[in-house]
C-alpha cells in the first residue's frame, strides 16, 4: 500500500517537472531524475549510456529460477553480464518453475529481494500482465510478431523443438518419428521428461505426439491416446528425466532439443533427432516486473539478452534465440554455434494460440492420469 502511494507521488512530482524527461510511454533521455520503473524503451547511445549508468548505480539484479548449468547457457550469460557491467546477480531458486516465479513476484512485492526479471512459460506472462512493466528492447522489431505483447509487457526469448534423444550404445536403430516409438523393439525404453501436467517439456511432447497422430492445436487428445497406447504395449516408462537417460532406464527420451545436450555432456553416445512426423516448437518468455527493486538493471538485462552477444550466448547453449531469423539474415549469428544444433524440421513451424494452449492443458490435466495410468 505504502509503495503504491510512493510511486503515485513520485510520478506526480516528476510529471510536474517540465525538465523534458518524457515519461509515461516514451523514450527516456539522460537525466539523473529518471524514474526507470516507468521507462518503456531507450533510444540511441545517449539513452543506453544513461541506462547503463543507472543500472551500475543500482549495482544488483534479482533474477529467479535461472538454472546455473546447462539450460540455454544461463550460467555463462549471467557471468558475462556481471563481468561486463559489474552488476551482481542474485539468482533465487535456480531450479524453480514458472509458477514459483509468479508466486515470488506476488509474495515478495515491495521487498528488495523481489524478482526484477522473469523467464517464464508464455501463458504465465499473459495471465499476469498486471504484475509486469512494459518495456521494448532496442531490437524489438527483430522479435517476430506473435511472439511478443503489443505493449511490451512480455516478449519471447529462446526456445526449441520437441526432439527424440536416443542412446546409441543401447539402441541399435534409433527411432526417427513418433510412429517408430510404438514399435515392439522399444519395449520399456521410451520416456518423457517428467509429468505433462507439471513440466512444459513433457506437455509439449504430448502436443507433438498429437500432431503426429491426426490431432491438431485444437485437439491434443490423440497425443494422450498415443502415450496411453505406449503404456499399454509396455514401451512407455513414466517418470523419465535426464538422470534416468544417463542411468539407462530410459534410453529413449523425448525432450527439448536444446536440453538434450545436458545428457550428451554425461553420455557421449546420446543422439538427438527431431521427429519427422511432428514439428512442434515453443519459446520461453521474458518480462520485467512492475515492482522491480532494480528497474534500470532489469531493463539493461533485457537489452543485453536481446543484443547480438546475448542472443548468440543462448545459441551457444543449443537454444534457438528468438531473433535467430533476423540474425541469420544480417549475418550476425555465430555459425559455429548454429551448426551444432540438429537441423530444424522442414516446412513452416506453427504455434498454438494461447486459447488453444489453455484448452489443451486443461485436457491433459483432466485425462493424463485417468487414461495413461489406466492403460497397460
Amino acid at each position, binding site marked *: 500500500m505504502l509503495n503504491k502511494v510512493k510511486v503515485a507521488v513520485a510520478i506526480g512530482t516528476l510529471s510536474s517537472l517540465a525538465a523534458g524527461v518524457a515519461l509515461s510511454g516514451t523514450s527516456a533521455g539522460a537525466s539523473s531524475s529518471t524514474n526507470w520503473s516507468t521507462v518503456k524503451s531507450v533510444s540511441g547511445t545517449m539513452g543506453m549510456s544513461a541506462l547503463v549508468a543507472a543500472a551500475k548505480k543500482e549495482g544488483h539484479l534479482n533474477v529467479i529460477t535461472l538454472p546455473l548449468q546447462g539450460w540455454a547457457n544461463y550460467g555463462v550469460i549471467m557471468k558475462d553480464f556481471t563481468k561486463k557491467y559489474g552488476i551482481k546477480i542474485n539468482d533465487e531458486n535456480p531450479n524453480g*518453475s*514458472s509458477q514459483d516465479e509468479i508466486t515470488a513476484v506476488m509474495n515478495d512485492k515491495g521487498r528488495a529481494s523481489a524478482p526484477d526479471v522473469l523467464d517464464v512459460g508464455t501463458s504465465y506472462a499473459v495471465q499476469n500482465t498486471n504484475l509486469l512493466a512494459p518495456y521494448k528492447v532496442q531490437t524489438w522489431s527483430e522479435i517476430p510478431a506473435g511472439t511478443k505483447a503489443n505493449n511490451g509487457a512480455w516478449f519471447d526469448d529462446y526456445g526449441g523443438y520437441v526432439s527424440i534423444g536416443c542412446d546409441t550404445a543401447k539402441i541399435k536403430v534409433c527411432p526417427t518419428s513418433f510412429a517408430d516409438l510404438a514399435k515392439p523393439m522399444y519395449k520399456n525404453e521410451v520416456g518423457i521428461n517428467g509429468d505433462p501436467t*507439471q513440466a512444459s517439456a513433457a506437455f509439449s511432447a504430448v502436443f507433438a505426439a498429437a500432431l503426429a497422430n491426426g490431432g491438431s492445436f485444437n485437439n491434443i487428445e490423440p497425443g494422450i491416446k498415443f502415450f496411453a497406447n505406449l503404456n499399454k504395449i509396455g514401451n512407455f516408462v513414466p517418470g523419465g528425466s535426464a538422470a534416468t537417460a544417463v542411468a539407462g532406464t530410459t534410453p529413449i527420451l523425448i525432450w527439448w532439443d536444446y536440453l538434450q545436450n545436458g545428457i550428451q555432456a554425461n553420455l557421449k553416445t546420446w543422439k538427438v533427432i527431431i521427429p519427422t512426423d511432428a514439428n512442434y516448437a515453443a519459446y520461453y518468455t521474458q518480462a520485467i516486473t512492475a515492482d522491480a527493486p532494480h528497474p534500470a538493471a532489469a531493463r539493461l538485462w533485457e537489452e543485453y539478452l536481446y543484443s547480438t552477444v546475448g542472443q548468440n550466448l543462448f545459441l551457444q547453449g543449443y537454444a534457438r534465440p528468438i531473433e535467430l531469423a533476423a540474425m541469420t539474415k544480417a549475418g550476425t549469428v555465430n555459425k559455429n554455434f548454429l551448426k551444432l544444433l540438429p537441423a530444424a524440421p522442414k516446412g513452416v513451424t506453427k504455434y498454438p494460440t494461447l486459447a488453444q494452449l489453455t484448452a489443451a492443458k486443461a485436457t*491433459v*490435466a483432466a*485425462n493424463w492420469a485417468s487414461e495413461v495410468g489406466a492403460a497397460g
Partner: protein
Amino acid sequence: MAFTTSLDTAPSLRGVEGRAVAKRPSRWHGLRSLVPVVPFLLYVGVVLGIPTFIIATLAFQTRTGHATWHNIQVITSGGQYLLGFETSLKLALVTAVIPGVLGTILAYAIAQSNHEAFKRVIASASGVLANFGGVNLAFMFVASLGPAGVATAWLSSLHLNPYNHGWTLYKFTGVAVVYMYFQVTLMVLVITPALNGLREQWREAAANLGASRWQYWRYVGVPVLLPPVLGSMFLLFGSGFSAYATAEALTGGTIALTPIQIGSILQGNVISGEENVGYALGFGMIVILLVSVVAYALLQRRSSRWLRS
C-alpha cells in the same frame, strides 16, 4: 494436561473459601501454569494455524480476491480431482494398514530379542529409513525393480521376470510397495516404545493363573497394544496421504493423487492461473484429515470402552 492439573488443585473450585479472595490466586495459578506451553502454542500457531487459515481463505476466493464457491465446485464435481482424492485415500489406507501390521510384528520380534546391540542397530536404521523418501527412494526402486533394474534382470535370468507376471513399478501397487519401504520402518519406530511397555511380568502372571497364550493376547496383550497401534496407523495414514515427491518421481503423474495435482497447480510449468483451485485441494485434504482425526478419536473412545467391559 496443564489445564487439568491447575483445575484439580485450584482452591476456589473446591467451593468452600470466600469466592472473591480465592478467585484471584486461582486465575493467576492457571495462567502461570500455561506459561511453559506458550512457545509451543506460538509455534503451532505460526507454522500450522496461519497457513491453514490462509489456505482455507484462499480456497473460497478468486484470483482477484472475490468470494466464490467456484473452486470447491471444481474439485467436487467429478473428474480428475475427485479421482485424485479417491486414489489418495486408498493409497493412504493400504499403506497404513499393511505396514501397520507388518511393522508391529517386526517391532515385537525385535523387542523380544535379548541382543542389545542388535536392537540399537535396528532402532537407528529405522530412524534413518523412515525418513528416506522422495526422488532418491523412487530412483532406488527404479534402479532395482524398474524394467531395466538390477533385481529385475537377476529375476529375469531365473525366468521370473516380474514384468511378465503383471508387476509394474509405475502404478498403484508399485507406488504402494515403495511407500511401504518407509512406512514399515516408521511403524517400527513409533510402536517400539509401546511394545517395551508390555511387561514380561504380565505374561508370567497370566501363565501362573493358567492363561493360554491366546488368552494372554486376547485379555492382556491386544487390549494394551490396540490404542497405540491404531494411533500409529493413523500417523502412517497421514504420512501416506500427504507424500508427494516419491510418487511424482516414480509415476510422472500417471497416477491421480491429490498432492501431485496440488504440485501441478502450485509448482508447475504447465497449468497457469489456477492457484485457488490448488488451495481448494489443500483445503480438501485438511478437511479429510480433520474428519479422520475425529473418526479416530471416536473409534479410540469406543475401543477403550470395549476394552473396559
